[in-house]
């Protein structure tokens, strides 16, 4: 649902989304240290593949986004990763348009990045199951945020495209639950096995 095709959004929405995405991209790239490149690339690849796998759900179909996980692990650097993933999906598979790429990047990346950054101090202090719950909450809220952004972009463009609440709830809520489970599991695993992967994994460590 987060891949908005060409020709749906109005020009102001496209330009606004493009500008926001470009700003986020510049910020993410400026923070991209040499040591972050492999992690960013691998998560970009994960995002690219995982969004191709979709579940038919009721009147629509949904796919994992993992934007919450990317926001937690990569922070702002998730924006370039998601941009690359979305660009390749648009070019190879026609999932989402090229003109709406900026809006799609904002829809998917920004909620995950903002929530992941906000939750970082909390995640740094929590352990085990609690960490999983916090990470899951971040992921679920990121999905809701993405849905809200998509709805906003569509509603701003034309009232005709206003997503029906029924469809969004039917597909969005199960997706949020699945994302929460996956992200909670991964973050708790990483915290236990390899905490230095997470930007806040080791107490006292920064960045």
């Amino acid at each position: 649902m987060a891949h908005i095709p060409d020709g749906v959004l109005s020009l102001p929405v496209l330009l606004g989304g493009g500008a926001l995405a470009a700003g986020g991209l510049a910020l993410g790239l400026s923070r991209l240290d040499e040591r972050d490149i492999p992690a960013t690339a691998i998560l970009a690849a994960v995002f690219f593949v995982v969004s191709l796998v979709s579940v038919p759900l009721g009147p629509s179909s949904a796919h994992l986004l993992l934007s919450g996980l990317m926001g937690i692990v990569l922070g702002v650097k998730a924006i370039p990763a998601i941009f690359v993933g979305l660009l390749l999906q648009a070019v190879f598979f026609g999932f989402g348009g090229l003109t709406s790429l900026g809006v799609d990047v904002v829809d998917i990346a920004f909620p995950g990045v903002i929530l992941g950054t906000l939750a970082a101090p909390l995640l740094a202090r929590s352990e085990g199951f609690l960490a999983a719950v916090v990470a899951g909450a971040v992921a679920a809220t990121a999905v809701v945020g993405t849905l809200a952004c998509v709805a906003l972009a569509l509603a701003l463009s034309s009232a005709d495209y206003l997503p029906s609440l029924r469809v969004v709830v039917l597909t969005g809520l199960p997706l949020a639950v699945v994302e929460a489970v996956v992200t909670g599991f991964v973050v708790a695993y990483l915290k236990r096995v390899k905490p230095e992967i997470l930007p806040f994994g080791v107490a006292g460590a920064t960045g």
Partner: protein
Amino acid sequence: MIAVRALARRLAVATLVVATIAAGVAPAAAHRLKLFLTTEAGEIAGYAFFVGGGRPDGVDYIVADAAGREVHRGRTDEHGAFRWRPVSPADYAVTVNAGDGHWVSGTVTADRLAGPAWPTEPTSADRAEKPASPPPEPTATPATAPATPAATPPRPSGIDEDALARLVEYRVDAALERRLRPLEEAYERAEGRLRFNDVMGGIGMIVGLAGAALWASSRRRRDPEEKP
């Protein structure tokens, strides 16, 4: 560099875990709404489907005429299918809006909708009404009409030659429509299919980008050391 490699290895493990979970959760693949549109005896019929599985059931479909005016709006059935008989043959655009930002549209041309189901003689009023869409008979028949009388054996008197030609054409069209439908459906499906090569190509592209970035940064780092 060792730390980076260890990090990459751990992340690869995490990737595998995530991919396995995702594969367990999601039996189907991919995500995009597509439309199969055909005509059956003067009716517009078809269905919308998500690439990789799933049909949008109970969502709006809108039929618009050549001028973009909405002439019909309905809801798809549980198989994402719809069927509508227009009042007269003309160019129509069908749009299916899944209601969540997925949106697809296709067109049906007037000549695919024509047949004996319509008034046999298109009135001049009909022609004047739709200047954008030429009535099908004048364009379609000249190609086939000369052949038909030549092929038919000496015919009994009293049969309207034009009516016969139209009937033959209509029956042939219907038969072709029936025969081609599975082919057209297969084509639509194949076009939207996710290809493993493309997936691997995308991953390769990401690896390449990462490699290029690492290369650039390694050169940048070495330069100041080499100068002194």
